[in-house]
């Protein structure tokens, strides 16, 4: 049996790993995105809560992702909170990337011309509706490239979860190579898979860029 035939035999392992990675990725970025937008909404008011949120975001920017995963998976059980590796990994992804999404949006919010907000206020928009209809759409259009970048980072961060025993794509490669002794081929397959997923993401983001370009947003 050639090595590539072996790979084909092991395709179930790869598929499981791929689905796990995609599942973790998709679920976590959706939740992280919503959470990140919520953080930035809380930053609109200048109160004690916004200071806490700001501090939280800055904290996440100084920590490695794996330490957060470790905290949730190895650390929390000591406080009585036990969860599966998958759950801990998912939560870590959501918490971590929500902060990064928030930081990206916050940066753009700082340079958003105040006039648009004032016009909405002057016409009676409540803070929440102002944020959802006027502020956030513009922030999203303007930060699309950076958000896209963060998506690819989130995809790669799923691989860290191998270390806390989540059976995702990299764990699958490891599993195949330790069973069949074909390290190079197993990992090449998996690296190509990661690569293809990011290319798909980048293509999808390019299409999303048309939304902004049609409305005259430059450099989107």
């Amino acid at each position, binding site marked *: 049996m050639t090595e590539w035939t072996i790979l084909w035999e092991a395709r179930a392992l790869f598929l499981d790993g791929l689905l796990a990675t995609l599942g973790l990725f998709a679920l976590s970025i959706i939740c992280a995105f919503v959470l990140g937008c919520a953080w930035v909404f809380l930053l609109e008011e200048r109160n004690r809560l916004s200071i806490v949120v700001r501090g939280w975001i800055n904290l996440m920017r100084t920590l*490695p992702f794996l330490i957060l995963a*470790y905290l949730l998976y190895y650390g929390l059980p*000591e406080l009585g909170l036990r969860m599966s590796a998958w759950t801990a990994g998912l939560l870590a992804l959501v918490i971590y990337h929500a902060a990064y999404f928030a930081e990206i949006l916050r940066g753009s919010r700082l340079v958003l011309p105040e006039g648009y907000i004032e016009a909405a206020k002057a016409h009676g928009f409540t803070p929440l509706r102002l944020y959802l209809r006027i502020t956030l759409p513009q922030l999203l259009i303007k930060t699309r490239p950076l958000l896209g970048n963060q998506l*690819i980072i989130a995809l790669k*961060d799923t*691989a860290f979860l191998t270390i806390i025993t989540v059976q995702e794509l990299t764990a699958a490669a490891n599993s195949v190579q330790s069973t069949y002794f074909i*390290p190079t081929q197993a990992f090449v397959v998996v*690296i190509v898979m990661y*690569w293809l*997923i990011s290319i798909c993401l980048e293509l999808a983001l390019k299409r999303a860029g048309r939304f902004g370009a049609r409305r005259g947003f430059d450099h989107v």
Partner: protein
Amino acid sequence: MNTQAWLLLLEGAWTTLWLCGIAIGIGVVLGLVIALIRLAKVPFVEQLLVLYISLARATPLVTLVLFLFLSAPVFGINMNRNTAAIVAMTLNTAAFNAEIWRAAFLSFSRDQREAALACGMTGGVFFRRIMLPQMITTSLPGLVNEMSFLIKGSPAVAVIGIVDLTRVTNRISAVTYDPLPPILAAAVLYMLIIGVLLKLQGLAERKANRLAM
């Protein structure tokens, strides 16, 4: 946490720092070299470099480290853990740095080159004395940002058994059965290291803004 645990922690921190330090040092220079070669637009090499950059930026560090460590023996290369870690991190960070350098080069105004040539400077002198110093200033914020990303990604090396600042917490809790304190302590140490880098990044940004390119 007792003294022994703290010592182990500091050892782990040192491991992280020296491994990352070498990768950063080589990676910044390698990134510059790659960016320069890309400027020359050599036909076959250009495609190869684009492929490398695309792959390296899409591959998780964990996967890359495992791949190199496990594949090297197949090709007869005897790589120990630390070497594999450094090579993986270098390949990863060099790709990002290449893009950062390249962005700086592409945004450099042609006027300065024309002015230099007009007063008789050769291309080489112009590059060494005029362009490169400014490129360093412009790229510095991005490069420092990438450094902090590398350190945040360095726990990946734990997957091949290196006892870095993250992995060492497993070691400690295996003895004390008390995982939370070492993890929190490691978190604080990372915060200090990255915090310093972020401050440096801020300084670099201010310096780059004064250049106002």
